[in-house]
C-alpha cells in the first residue's frame, strides 16, 4: 500500500531525515511505499495532527510542545532542567525511560494515536541581544515563545518577559528589537539565519527540543502482525540513524554560524550559573501539575526517577 507521512520541518531538518530513514526501511523491507509531506504542504502542526486522527495521513511527526493543546501532559518537555545536558545521557534516557516508553504511549493511545518513537532533535539555545549569565540579566528581556502557557511560565521563572509571536515574524521582530531574544535548537538558529539578528548564543542547558513520530491507531491496529513489526522496526532503525545524525550536528551548525559572522558570541553557563536558573524550575513544575492534575504529577515523578536511573549508570 501507499502510506502517507507528514512532519513539521523543512527539507534536510532532523524530522525530515528521520522520515526519510523510516521510508527507506519500509520500502527496502516490504512492497509498501511511503509518501512524505513536509512543513506547510498540508498545513501547520495542528492540521497534520487532525488529519492523522481523521485517517487521511497514516503517520505524523509532531513535537509534544504542539501536542499540548491535545495532550496537556506532553508539555512536560518544557519544564526546564528535567533532562540531562550531555547528549549520551539524553540518548540513554530516551532508550530506557519508563515515562517515555510506557506512560506516553498510553496518553497518545487515548487520542487515537500509536506512539512509535520519541526522539531528541537538539539542545535549546537562547539567542539574545547581549550575553546573559544570570536570571537577573534576563530581566526585561522580551523572549519570543510559542503560544504555550507552560513555556511562557519557564521564561517568566527565568526572569524574562515571554512574548508570544508567530514563527514568521520572529526574524523581523529580532531585527527591529521588538523582541530581545528567542530559543531554538542551534541548527534552526543556523538555517533560519537568526544569529544574524540575535548574535549572542547562550547555552543554558535547560532542555532538549523533543519530537515524536506516531501512527493513526485505527490504521495501525488493523494491520497484520508483520506490518506492525515492519513499522516498529522502521521506527527503531530511523531512531538509531537519527541519534548518530544529531551527534555532531550541533557542533557543525555552530561552526557554520561562527564562520558566517564575527559578531556571534558563545556563552556556556558553568555549573554555578546553571544552579541559579535551576532554582527557578520548581515554579514551572508547580504550574505543570496545576495544568495536568494527578496524572501529570505521576508522570513528572516517573520522569525524575528515570533520570536518576540513567545518571547513576
Amino acid at each position, binding site marked *: 500500500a501507499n502510506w502517507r507521512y507528514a512532519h513539521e520541518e523543512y527539507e534536510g531538518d532532523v524530522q525530515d531525515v528521520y522520515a526519510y530513514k523510516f521510508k527507506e526501511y519500509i520500502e527496502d523491507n516490504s512492497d509498501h511505499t511511503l509518501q512524505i509531506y513536509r512543513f506547510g504542504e*498540508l*498545513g501547520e502542526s495542528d*492540521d497534520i495532527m487532525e488529519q492523522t486522527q481523521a485517517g487521511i495521513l497514516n503517520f505524523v511527526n509532531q513535537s509534544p510542545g504542539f501536542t499540548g493543546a491535545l495532550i496537556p501532559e506532553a508539555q512536560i518537555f518544557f519544564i526546564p532542567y528535567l533532562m540531562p545536558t550531555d547528549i549520551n545521557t539524553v540518548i540513554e534516557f530516551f532508550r530506557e525511560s519508563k515515562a517515555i516508553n510506557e506512560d506516553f504511549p498510553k496518553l497518545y493511545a487515548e487520542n487515537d494515536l500509536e506512539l512509535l518513537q520519541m526522539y531528541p532533535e537538539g539542545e535549546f539555545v537562547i539567542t539574545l541581544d547581549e550575553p546573559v549569565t544570570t536570571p537577573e540579566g534576563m530581566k526585561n528581556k522580551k523572549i519570543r515563545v510559542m503560544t504555550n502557557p507552560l513555556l511562557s511560565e519557564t521564561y517568566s521563572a527565568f526572569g524574562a518577559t515571554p512574548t508570544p509571536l*508567530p514563527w*514568521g*515574524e520572529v526574524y*523581523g521582530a529580532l531585527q*527591529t528589537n521588538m523582541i530581545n531574544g528567542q530559543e531554538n535548537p542551534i541548527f534552526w538558529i543556523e538555517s533560519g539565519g537568526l544569529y544574524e539578528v540575535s548574535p549572542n548564543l547562550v547555552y543554558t542547558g535547560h532542555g532538549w527540543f523533543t519530537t515524536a513520530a506516531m501512527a493513526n491507531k485505527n490504521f495501525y491496529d488493523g494491520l497484520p502482525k508483520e506490518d506492525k513489526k515492519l513499522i516498529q522496526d522502521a521506527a527503531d532503525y530511523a531512531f538509531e540513524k537519527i541519534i548518530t545524525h544529531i551527534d555532531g550536528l550541533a557542533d557543525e551548525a555552530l561552526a557554520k554560524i561562527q564562520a558566517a559572522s564575527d*559578531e556571534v558570541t558563545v556563552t556556556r553557563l558553568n555549573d554555578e550559573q546553571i544552579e541559579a536558573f535551576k532554582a527557578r524550575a520548581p515554579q514551572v513544575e508547580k504550574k505543570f501539575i496545576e495544568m495536568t492534575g494527578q496524572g501529570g504529577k505521576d508522570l513528572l515523578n516517573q520522569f525524575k526517577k528515570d533520570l536518576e536511573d540513567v545518571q547513576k549508570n
Partner: protein
Amino acid sequence: MATILMLIMIGLLLLGFPMMIPLTTAAVVGFVMMFDGFGQMGTFIQQMMGGIRPASLIAVPMFILAADIMTRGQSADRLINMVMAFIGHIKGGLAISTATSCTLFGAVSGSTQATVVAVGSPLRPKMLKAGYSDSFTLALIINSSDIAFLIPPSIGMIIYGVISQTSIAELFIAGVGPGILILFMFSLYCLFYAYKNNVPTEPKASWRERAVSVRDASWPLFFPVIIVGGIYGGIFSPTEAAAVCVLYAFLLEFIVFRSLKLGEIYKIAKSTGLITAVVFILVAVGNGFSWIISFAQIPQAILESVGVNEAGPIGVLIAICVAFFVACMFVDPIVVILVLTPIFAPAIQATGLDPVLVGVLITLQVAIGSATPPFGCDIFTAIAIFKRPYLEVIRGTPPFIIMLIVAAGLIIAFPQIALFLRDLAFAD
C-alpha cells in the same frame, strides 16, 4: 485530475458564479476523487479555517478601514491638494498629479480599490474638463492605483508574506523602488501625451498656496512616518502597524479635523467588515483548494513536466511572472496569490531566489494582470465606480501595460531596483 479541476474552475468562473464557488467545487471534486467520496470533507473545512488563521491577516481589514476613514474624511483630499499645488501647473501636470496622488495615497493605504475611489473620484472630472480623453484618464487612474499595491503598505504583499513565510517588513521596503520607477515612467508618458494632444496647463499655485497645502497635508503625511518608524523602530510589527494606522486615521478625522461624526464609525466598520468577509472567504476556500492539490502532489508534477527546476533563476522568475500575469487577467489577485504561490514555492527554494524579490515581482505582475483585458478585475472596479462602458475603460490601457511589463523586465535584469533599499535598511 489537474485538468478536470482547471476546467471546472474556469468554466464556473466564466459563467459568473460567485468566485468562492469555482474554487469550492473544484476542491470538493478533488476530495471526492482522492478519497472516493465525501468522507474526508472535514479536512476541507479544517483547511478553510486554517486559511484564515494567521493572525497577520488582520492587517487586511485594518488597512482597508484606515483608508476608508481617510477617504470619507479629509485626509485623501488634503494629500491631493498638496500634489496639485506643486505639479498641477506643468505640462501634463494634472495627469502627473493623478499618478503621484495615487502613489502618495498608496503610502497610506493598502488597497487598490480604495485608491481608485480616493484619487479617481475627485480628479477624473478635473482631467476631463482640462481636455484629457476619458479613456486615457480611466487607464491612468486604474494603472496608477496599481502603484499603491507596490508602495507599502500593500495587502497583496501581506498575503504573499503570510503564505510564503517571507518577512513582510522586507517586502514592504522592497516595493518602494519599483513603485517610484513606475511613477516616473507614467509621468513621462503623461508629459508626452499632454504635448501630443496639446492639453492646456493649469494655473500655477503661488508659494503661499503651496505652503498652506503642505500645512493642510502635514497630518496625513505623517502616516508613512508612523508606519515606517513604528516597524523599523521596533515598536510594532507590520501587522500591528495596520491597526495603529486605524488609530491614527481615527484621531485625525474624528478629533483633529472633526470631519466625521462618531456614529459613522459603525457604518464604516460594517462596510470594511463586508469587504473583509468576501475576501477572506476566498482566502479560506483557496487554502482548502491548495491543500487538495498539494496532497495529490499536482504542483510537483506540473513543475516537473514544464522543466522549471532546470530553468535556472531567471527562467523561474519569468515563469512566475507569466503565470501570475495571465492568471490575474482572469481571476481575483488575492486568489491568484493564494493558489499559485504554493505551487512555485519549491522552485523558488530550489533555485535560491530571494523570496523578497519574488514577492515584489509577483505583486507587480498581479497589479498588471488586474488591469489587463479581458477580465482584469480592476477594469470591472472602474466600470462600477465610474459607470463607463467596458470598451472605453480598456481602450487606453495598452501603453500602461507595456510600461509595466518593461518595469518588470527592468526589475528582473536589475534586482537592485527592489533590493537596494531593503539591503540598506536591513544591512548588518
